[in-house]
């Protein structure tokens, strides 16, 4: 059978930002779906968003309420959400209370009542909330199975897309006829992680469509439910081919050490202890990008955008003007209970809005602290997905990370995340001639040449300035406590910069 002969399943907008992408483009028309989860997990709100997105006077939505939350209180609370349009009631959306028939009669009478209302209204959408209370006391399993079969068949025949809402525990997934009959099964979870609430959504099944598997973070705000796909909405995008273009810092000696700059689409990690100039380097990277006509995003977690711009100004770097011109966005991501997916969503929005080519994450430690404790366990995995997605669309990322300074080791990162990065620049303090000085070394440049030199630098009013040649008179520089080698300047060897090649 050719693709032309196959039935085309229309996809309806879910009305939930981010959810259309997760369900594979929209909810299949005429599908029979279950929204399951614990109390307070957002089931009713999700269903309301779908109803308000799809109901029309010609094909209205019928919202059957049963014994759970009283309809009047439900409407009282739900109308606080921005998507709730009172003018759509009752022509486009009708709420029908089935409590009496459920209390006084059997499932057959309930089916009869639903049938009567559906035949009268010809709805495009039918919701039963809460379905669980309706079938809590079936006379037998067969009654329940028969009821669900007939209900599903009837609503599909009447070309209605249906949601049954129920409070279910995950143990009930097995051997429950409701889940067998359903075309779509949406499971909403809400767990407390230390002092934060983590909400996750899973599409356990969705017939006829490729939904994105796994657990997706969601949040409930005054706009209703907002979902954040694990794939960040980039599943349909092709990865950009690797580029040979180099992005400069505008610090000639450093750019030379990097073999001409950071390769476009790379993820660069700048690691060092407090005060070594990681943020200064990051700021210079962004400022140079803007100078080169490459819009940028700075995601800050430890200070407000104004403070960040003021610090840049003290280095002679103007971040105010490019912000006004739409060339730079400094994102201050609200700390404490973020998910990586939400952060990613904010960053992606900003990247797409200004066509950013450079992104600075300052810092990964701040980023981790901004996350809800429940997401910190997944930090590395989430970071990997985020970096992979962003570099895939050609964004060059510079992340800063603070490392504990040790005089016995030379760690690149406390996060064991160096595998996530293409390039690493390490900054550290070193004790020389009774002074605490700073050195810099390029640890790796994936697929490119870089210098092996250890260079001393200073942070001046113009930013990071690399001093002189490589330090050849000392041994054990990376230990932080070098010893003088006794070699004179005349014995200096040629610099092992990128021209002499060190490819990793």
């Amino acid at each position, binding site marked *: 059978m050719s693709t032309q002969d196959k039935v085309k399943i229309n996809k309806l907008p879910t009305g939930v930002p981010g959810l259309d992408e997760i369900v594979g483009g929209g909810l299949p028309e005429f599908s029979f779906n279950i929204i399951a989860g614990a109390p307070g997990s957002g089931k009713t709100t999700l269903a309301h968003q779908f109803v308000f997105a799809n109901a029309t006077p010609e094909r209205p939505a019928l919202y059957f309420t049963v014994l759970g939350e009283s309809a009047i209180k439900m*409407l*009282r609370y739900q109308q606080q959400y921005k998507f709730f349009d*009172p003018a*759509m*009631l*009752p022509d486009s959306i009708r709420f*029908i*209370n089935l*409590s009496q028939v459920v209390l006084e009669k059997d499932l057959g009478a309930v089916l009869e009542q639903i049938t009567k209302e559906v035949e009268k209204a010809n709805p495009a959408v039918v919701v039963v909330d809460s379905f669980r209370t309706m079938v809590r006391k079936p006379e037998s399993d067969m009654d329940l199975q028969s009821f669900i079969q007939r209900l599903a068949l009837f609503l599909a025949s009447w070309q209605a897309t249906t949601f049954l809402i129920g409070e279910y525990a995950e143990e009930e997934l097995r051997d429950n006829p409701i889940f067998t009959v359903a075309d779509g099964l949406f499971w909403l979870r809400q767990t407390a992680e230390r002092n934060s609430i983590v909400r996750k959504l899973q599409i356990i099944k969705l017939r006829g469509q490729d939904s994105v598997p796994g657990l997706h973070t969601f949040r409930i705000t005054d706009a209703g439910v907002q979902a954040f796909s694990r794939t960040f909405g980039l599943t349909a995008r092709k990865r950009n081919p690797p580029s040979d273009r180099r992005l400069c810092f505008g610090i000639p000696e450093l750019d030379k050490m990097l073999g001409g700059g950071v390769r476009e689409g790379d993820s660069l990690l700048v690691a060092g202890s407090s005060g070594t100039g990681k943020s200064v380097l990051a700021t210079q990277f962004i400022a140079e990008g803007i100078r080169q006509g490459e819009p940028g995003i700075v995601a800050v977690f430890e200070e407000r955008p104004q403070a960040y711009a003021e610090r840049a100004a003290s280095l002679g770097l103007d971040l105010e003007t490019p912000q006004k011109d739409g060339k730079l966005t400094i994102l201050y991501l609200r700390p404490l209970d973020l998910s990586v997916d939400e952060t990613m969503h904010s960053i992606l929005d900003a990247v797409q809005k200004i066509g950013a080519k450079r992104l600075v994450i300052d810092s990964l430690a701040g980023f981790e602290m901004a996350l809800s404790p429940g997401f910190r366990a997944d930090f590395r995995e989430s970071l990997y997905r985020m970096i992979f997605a962003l570099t895939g669309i050609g964004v060059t990322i510079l992340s800063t990370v603070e490392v504990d300074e040790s005089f016995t080791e030379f760690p690149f990162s406390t996060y064991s995340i160096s595998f996530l990065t293409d390039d690493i620049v390490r900054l550290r303090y070193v004790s020389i001639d009774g002074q605490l000085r700073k050195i810099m070394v390029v640890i790796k440049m994936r697929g490119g040449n870089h210098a092996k030199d250890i260079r001393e630098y200073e942070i001046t009013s113009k930013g990071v300035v690399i001093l002189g040649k490589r330090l050849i008179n000392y041994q054990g520089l990376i230990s932080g406590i070098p010893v003088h080698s006794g070699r004179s300047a005349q014995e200096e060897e040629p610099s092992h910069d990128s021209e002499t090649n060190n490819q990793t």
Partner: protein
Amino acid sequence: MTAAPGMRDLAHRLLTYEAGAGKTSEPMESPTLRVYEKLRQSLGEFVGVTGFELLASRALTLARPEAPGLSAVRVAADGSIQGLGEIETQIDMNKDPAGEGGIILIAGLLGLLRIFLGEALTLSLLRNEWPGEAIDDRNSVHGRKA
């Protein structure tokens, strides 16, 4: 408790509208009863029989101090109102077609709806039962004309 002026105006308009509509229909039914029954039908659909009965009982309780004549009126378990007809037959319908007690009761019921659902949603629901001229924006607390 005195109903908000906006709700009194709205109740008055609904009762006046029904008084006018009642003149053309066969049985001479109290306008208050007609408004009440329409509210019972439309609200009962989504709040349920018990839900409406409880709202109506609350409205009646709130209305009694202001309209002692309502003391004999009762709300039945199915949400219907009993004893209202007897009171309203004592009122000169030509002089007071709406009936003060009826206005207070209906205003109280509408006031409860506004408290729970807000004005926009309350008016949306009423528009399903009455034409626009009966539910004029002048009845809006925010949109009342001076």
